[in-house]
């Protein structure tokens, strides 16, 4: 157990940024919009959160800034994919490119600086539980917030009226419009909130994980988050499993290298990606056999009121 508890705890830690981004993308995709810009959003979040924390000394300001920055950038994606009806894959790639470029351009003076950032706050009593305690309850506040967010989103999406509207607009925007709600407004709203959450995930990287800023520091986590949304079949609770699994592979790889085994690092590093493809394959095979998959029916399809039949 002594070997596994630190790995599991590290899995939670390194899985958290992916979890935030996946939760955000679940909201966005549930509303019928696909945002492939997570990587760029995370980088902008990591950069803006770090900068504000560095100058104010308060990491919470950093988190709020990252959230707002994420919302602002996703507004562009929402405009292009909802109002213009442009191709969402290309728009998402543009968000990633812009975010990667802008963050490294803006952050060039921040390289090498460090911040105290978030520190660990063990939860009394709970952190004393053997195994469970150190794995889940000896983290920084952002990790605990992500737990709360998962419970909230499960409740919100599946047990509330606005959640039903969210699922409806992802399934059939025409119906939502007929219900007297605005499909366009809903899609804007959830694309922006989703982007904000992805950006907070990036801020976790620079505020709690590395406590510094580096060019391209999210290293593909945004893309993994997109894969995890499919892995989770658009369900927040399963996204937790996916995010920690990926975090765990990353943590494991560091340990194995530290233990000095001869197992080559690049081979370990490609495992999460191969794993994602296998999971996708299993889901698609199930779908092909007619097993019901709870996926948003009009995902990625632009909706125009003028064209409804």
């Amino acid at each position, binding site marked *: 157990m002594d070997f596994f508890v630190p790995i599991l705890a590290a899995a939670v830690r390194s899985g958290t940024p992916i979890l935030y981004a996946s939760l955000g993308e679940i909201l966005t995709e549930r509303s019928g919009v696909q945002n*492939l810009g997570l990587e*760029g959003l995370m980088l902008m979040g990591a950069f803006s959160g770090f900068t504000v924390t560095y100058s104010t000394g308060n990491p919470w300001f950093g988190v709020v800034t990252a959230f707002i920055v994420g919302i602002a950038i996703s507004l*562009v994606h929402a*405009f*292009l994919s909802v109002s*213009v*009806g*442009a*191709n969402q*894959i*290309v*728009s998402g*790639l*543009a*968000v*990633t*490119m*812009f*975010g*990667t*470029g*802008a963050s*490294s*351009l*803006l952050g*060039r003076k921040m390289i090498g600086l460090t911040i105290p950032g978030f520190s660990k706050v063990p939860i009394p009593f709970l952190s004393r539980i053997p195994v469970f305690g150190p794995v889940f309850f000896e983290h920084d506040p952002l990790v605990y917030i992500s737990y709360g967010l998962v419970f909230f989103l499960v409740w919100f999406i599946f047990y509330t009226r606005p959640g039903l509207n969210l699922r409806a607009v992802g399934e059939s925007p025409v119906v939502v419009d007929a219900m007297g709600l605005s499909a366009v407004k809903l899609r804007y709203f959830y694309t922006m909130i989703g982007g904000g959450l992805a950006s907070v995930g990036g801020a976790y990287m620079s505020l709690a994980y590395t406590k510094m800023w580096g*060019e*391209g520091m999210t290293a*593909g986590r945004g*893309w993994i988050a*997109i*894969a995890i949304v*499919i892995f989770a079949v658009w369900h927040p609770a399963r996204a937790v499993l996916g995010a920690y699994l990926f975090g765990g592979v990353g943590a494991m790889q560091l340990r194995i290298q530290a233990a000095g085994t001869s197992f*080559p*690092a*690049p*081979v370990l*590093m*490609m495992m999460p*990606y*191969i794993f*994602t*493809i296998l999971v*996708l*394959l299993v889901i*698609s*095979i199930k*779908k*092909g056999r007619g097993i019901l998959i709870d996926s948003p029916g009009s995902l990625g399809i632009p909706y125009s009121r003028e064209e409804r039949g």
Partner: protein
Amino acid sequence: MIFEGVLPVLSVLAALFLAGVALMFFGVSPLAAYRAMFRGALGSWYGFSEVLVKTIPLVISGVAVGFAFRMKIWNIGAEGQIYMGALATAAAVRFLQSSSQFSMLLAMAVAAVIAGGFWGCIAGVLKARWNVNEVITTLMLNYVAIHLAEYFIYGPWRDPSSLGFPMTPPFPPSARLPQFLDTRVHLGIVAAIVLVLIFRLVIRWTRWGFEIRAVGENPKAAEYAGIRYGRNVVMVMFVSGAIAGLAGMTEIAGLQGRLQPGMSPGYGYTAIIIAWLARLNPWGIIIVSFFMGVLLVGGETIQVIMRLPLASVQVIQGCILFSVLAFEFFRNYRVLLVRKERN
């Protein structure tokens, strides 16, 4: 329609303006940056030849991506296919020591085509057989390919005399593509032009090209017409991957002379922009690739002169995509100026 042709130019101009505003906001003088980029890329013969050097892999991988796009298949995986092609090229050099330059280069090209094609094929088969989303699979395969290449570069194929630098030993002269006129422009430029011509020919004048276009325009109608979707997906992904693999081969055999990490600085991703901006027009692919080459060389110039990170070019690329997408609006809607009637 004239407007159709003017639209891309207008949107690129708007993009440069947009990127300029962004650069200004980020504390960089856009005029100084653009001037430095222009001078660096087009101000001298050397700069121009360097632009051509960058244009070669961009054209080839642009054709690769464009081929799949024709059938509305999203090959986001050109980057990984480039790496697989380069990896296979290095393998061929390592295991076939032939003194004949022709047979050596041929073997390298064949290896690259097979490896890249195989890599594309994986996503194609998954899509055809089980309808797995090719955007995610090709993207994931990029990372797998890059790490696979790193495994060999850091591990068994590492040059023992490289003083610890991760790279394979340099290729022998027989395994190098000839370069022209004291520049770094290599034979790959001929391959690029030939590939564009073949792309045009196949799509426009062959039965298979017709099938690809038909499936791309309307998969359902194509299916009713007896065109098999699955088989075409696999074949198109194989060809697309094979062409991207060839881009990897020309890049390391023509330019770098060995396999090293980061051998492609995102050519496969830029290729997506190129295929998209060119609207799948073969000549457009050449023009847009050249433009992107100017951006890349210009980016390297401002990296040296103005000490800006190379990634700042991505700001401009992102802005170009944004503005082209926004201009889609004008493709769908016509702007009418209506004057108020006087009575």
